[in-house]
Structure formats: structure tokens, C-alpha cells
């Protein structure tokens, strides 16, 4: 019984690798004078550490499946390293891209950023990085051209995570949207606690965004739990540890900003960094989660 299962697993793994390897064979052997280095490497969840060491955790926390890595060289110019991550789903690819996004740019793929020799973009279930150092004008043009070509070869477009649509549009700073499944990434953008008091894990979707409205700035966090009980447990922990047991779930914290939370069935809305209590109440009122 065990043998057929192992065989099936091995076959599935090979099929996955073949899918990303197929992509490699569509990529040009030469572009603008840069020639492809011989061969390519494929890394899976167990071997990603061999390639990017501590950096692997980011991708693993977003459901990383496998990575295709290869390079280009041209005499007198910097090498170009191309990394194509199969993240399994477009939501994961968007999530990992959103983690470091600073600007809104859709010129390549479904969202991209270029600066100083590094192009990153996402399209479908793929997150792609092209890096050359130091940057030259020639390598910049080539990276953008190659990035566009890779984007064209990824035929399938992906959908943005549905949870994003629940964010109120008014005042939303779109480039600030962060989508994640691991509490460490929440702390990366707004430190709450070194412990996972909001119970964010691979079974919860979370989105954090900045808002600017009527001369006020605040952050809105939405966490979608598998069920109401889990949302309630997380809310209880958050009120206990972060809001000092505030009876109405709203409290001024030590940096003089206001924070609060509300449950809506299996979802938890959290307002952070607001100016005053009324502002927090107004935000919840507008969300209809009073």
C-alpha cells in the first residue's frame, strides 16, 4: 500500500519540477548581448535554505513550492541572476510581493518594482526576481526587457486575494497593503508583540493597510479565521495582552495612539495607530462592526 503512495508522491513532485523547468526552456539563450549560463537549478521547500539561507523563511511562510534559478553573463557587464518562484497560488505570489512593495507599478506582470539593478514582479502563481550588481544602464535595460519577456511567457493571470476587497476603499493607501499568514510579518510592519497574540497562522488570512483620511492616519488589520471560536479566542488574547483588558475593546496605548478591535463572525478587525477614541469608534461604525 505504501509503495504506490510513495510512487504517486514522487510522480507529483517530478511533475511540479517539470512545470517550472518547462518555463526555463522558453527563455532566450541570449538577450542584448547577455548569454545564458549553462544549466539551471531547481530548489524545493527542503533545499531552498541551501540557496538563500535565512531568506527562505519568507517564501516558505507563503506556501513556496519550488524555485527555478539561472543566470546570464556578458563580458564587461554584471551577471544577471534570475529567480522564478512557484508560490502555488496567485494569492501567495501576491503576498510575498506585497511584503516589500514600496510603489504601485504594473508595467511588468501584475505588479512590479525596479530599483538599482533589482526587478521584482508577480504574475499568476509566480514571483520573479532579476538581480544584477552593480547596475549599469545596459543591464537595467536588459533586466526590464527580460522581465517583460518572462512575464509574457507566464500566460495565466492570477486573482488578488478576496480578503483585499473587504478593505474600505476610502483613504486606503494601496501600496501599503500587506497580505500574510504568519504573525512575524505583522510585526515587520507594525510591532504588536513578540508572541502571536492574534493567533495568525497558515490557516488564517491577514491583511494590513495604511489609511489616510480627513488629515488622519491609521492602520487597519483584518484577520479571517477558520471559525468564530478561533476569532473569539484571538480577540480575547489581543484585548488581554494589548488593550489591557479594555472593556469596550478600545484603548490608548503607550505611544499615545489608540487601538481597538471588533469581531464580525469569524473575522477580526483591528484599528492601530489612531489619534483618538472617537476615530476608532468612527472607523468601526463605517465598517458596520460596532
Amino acid at each position, binding site marked *: 500500500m505504501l509503495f504506490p503512495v510513495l510512487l504517486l508522491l514522487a510522480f507529483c513532485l517530478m511533475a511540479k519540477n517539470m512545470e517550472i523547468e518547462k518555463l526555463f526552456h522558453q527563455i532566450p539563450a541570449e538577450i542584448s548581448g547577455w548569454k545564458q549560463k549553462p544549466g539551471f537549478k531547481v530548489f524545493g521547500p527542503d533545499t531552498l*535554505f541551501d540557496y*538563500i*539561507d*535565512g*531568506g*527562505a*523563511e*519568507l*517564501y516558505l511562510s507563503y506556501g513556496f513550492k519550488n*524555485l527555478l534559478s539561472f543566470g546570464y553573463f556578458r563580458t564587461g557587464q554584471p551577471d544577471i*541572476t534570475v*529567480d522564478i*518562484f512557484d508560490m502555488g497560488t496567485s494569492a501567495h505570489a501576491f503576498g510575498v510581493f506585497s511584503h*516589500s512593495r514600496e510603489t504601485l507599478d504594473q508595467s511588468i506582470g501584475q505588479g512590479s*518594482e525596479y*530599483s*538599482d*539593478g*533589482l526587478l*521584482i514582479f508577480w504574475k499568476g502563481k509566480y514571483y520573479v*526576481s532579476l*538581480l544584477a*550588481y*552593480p*547596475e549599469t544602464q545596459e543591464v537595467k535595460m536588459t533586466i526590464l526587457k527580460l522581465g517583460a519577456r518572462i512575464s509574457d511567457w507566464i500566460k495565466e493571470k492570477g486573482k488578488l486575494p478576496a480578503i483585499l476587497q473587504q478593505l474600505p476603499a476610502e483613504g486606503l493607501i494601496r501600496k501599503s497593503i500587506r497580505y500574510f499568514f504568519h504573525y*512575524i*510579518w505583522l*510585526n*515587520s*510592519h507594525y*510591532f*504588536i*508583540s*513578540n*508572541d502571536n*497574540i492574534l493567533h495568525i497562522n497558515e490557516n488564517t488570512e491577514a491583511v494590513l493597510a495604511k489609511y489616510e483620511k480627513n488629515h488622519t492616519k491609521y492602520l487597519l488589520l483584518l484577520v479571517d479565521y477558520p471559525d468564530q471560536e478561533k476569532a473569539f479566542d484571538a480577540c480575547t488574547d489581543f484585548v488581554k*495582552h*494589548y488593550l489591557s483588558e479594555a472593556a469596550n475593546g478600545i484603548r490608548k*496605548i*503607550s*505611544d499615545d495612539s489608540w487601538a481597538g478591535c471588533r469581531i464580525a463572525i469569524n473575522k477580526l478587525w483591528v484599528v492601530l495607530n489612531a489619534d483618538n477614541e472617537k476615530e476608532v469608534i468612527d472607523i468601526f461604525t463605517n465598517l458596520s462592526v460596532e
Partner: protein
Amino acid sequence: MKQKSIISRREFLKNASKTAMGSALFLTPFAKKGMTHEHVRQKTTVVLVRNKAVLNASVKPDYRVVLDMLDKGITTLIGEKNPVQCWKKLLKKDDIVGIKSNVWKYIPTTSQVENAIKKRVLDAGIPENRIGVGDRGILRNTIFKNATALINARPMRSHHWSGVGSLIKNYIMFVPRPWDYHDDSCADLATIWKLPIVKDKTRLNVLVMFTPQFHGKGPHSFNPKYVWKYYGMIMGFDPVAVDSIGVRILQAKRKDFFGEERPLNPPPKHVFLADTRHNLGTADPDKIKLIKLGYQEDILI
């Protein structure tokens, strides 16, 4: 059993205000009663040496300037004018010395730093066949396996998962499965320093700040946009104190660059937990005596 401690934003911010640059660095939510390490009783000295001539036109370090910076640092730390005498105080003639470097291809420790340290170890009377320089593969290196003394030297940079890659993290290559220490964004990296292969062997810590990286992006966590010329080297006997000074400089640079408080991503909690949870050293700016030598412009601390 791992000690469990919750650091809230309240504590994060309260302690952040203690740092000179208003940056979020030392978090001390727990009573320090019972702490016995030397650094709690007296101020730990950390020396920051800067020299604008350390980088040439190609942004490569100049060996002679590096050696001079190293000498300035060690003589200040030990309070002895002759650098060779200082190294003789640090090392015994029968020591086997491992110089733990870092080979990250974008910002390595650099051969200039490695060679400057090696020269002074040789000057101290250690024969070449008892000196090793290494990073990856040190567990297969007989010098490192048998080392009686370690010199820890690596560059400072922001890090995808641990907040910063600096001195404490540099010993991760002493464990066979580095990823076993990745839990909770590398919170307990300091425990590596208690393993027999390294425990009590570190004679000097050198945090290279010639071109530190204050922000990372992309799978290689590198973008030259976020690297700047700082021309510095931070030295000390306490890796936690040295790292904490390095973190404060990075935080200050981030504030300067982004125009707002932008915490390191993720927060480098392993640095302060090395103090509050593991008693490896001190991250408390009130307990660190920082001596600044050389170039003062844009020092950020």
C-alpha cells in the same frame, strides 16, 4: 525548556525611547534580578572607529587603513598603546585561533579585514598552521573544531528573517542545521553561543560597517539602493553590546532614508533577547560605554 516572555508594543516603545536616536532597540521588560554576567555590573566598552579613507574609488577596503582601524579599536578597548601587545593579552601562545568570517557575496567580511586580523594573530605569536579563517564548512574544518580562541568578524546588514545579520548570528554556522534556530524569527540565536564548540572562546568581536545594508528586498535580500558608505568598524568583547550599537545605527539610517520611523523588518529581537533571555551580554544603552574615534560626520549615533 525555552523561557517564554512576551514583549508588548508598550514595552517595545517604552524602551525604544531610551535609545539615543529614538530607535526601537533595547527592550527590557523583565526584571534583571539574578543576572550575574559581568556586563550588568559595569559598563561594557564598545569602540566605533571610522575612517573615510577605508574605501577606495571602487568602494573596496584599503588593507592598510583597515589594519590601522583595527589597531585603534583594540588599543582603545584594552588601554594599551601597542596593538601587538594587546593581541598578546587576548591570545595565549598555544591557542588555536578560528577567525569566523562571513562570505555573503554582496557584502562579505572582506579579505582585507580577515588578513588584518590574521596578521595581528600571527604577530601575537600564533603560528600560521594554528590559525583558520572560515565561514561555511567550519564544522568540517579542524582548526575550528579544535579552536581554543575565536575572533568573530562580519559585516552588518538587515536580514529577511532575523532583522539583522550581525555578530550574534554569525555563529550559526557552528550548528549542523542552522534552520533549527529560525523559529520565531531567530529569537534564540544566542543559545548557539552556549554550545561547547564556541562557549567562552570569543576573544574579540568586529562588526564591519564599511558599507552596511539597512533594508533588504528580493530573494537575495540585497539591493544597492539600501547600502551606504559608513566607513566604520565596531569592536568589543560583548557581541550583544556591539550588535546593539550596530542596530541603532541601522535604525537611524532607516529613519533618515525613509523619512519616518520604520522598524527593521522583522524586528531584530534576537539581539535584545540575547540580553534579557539568555544573558549573553547587554543591549542596554545605559550600560554601554561607546567610544567614537575618527570621522564623525553622519555618524548617526
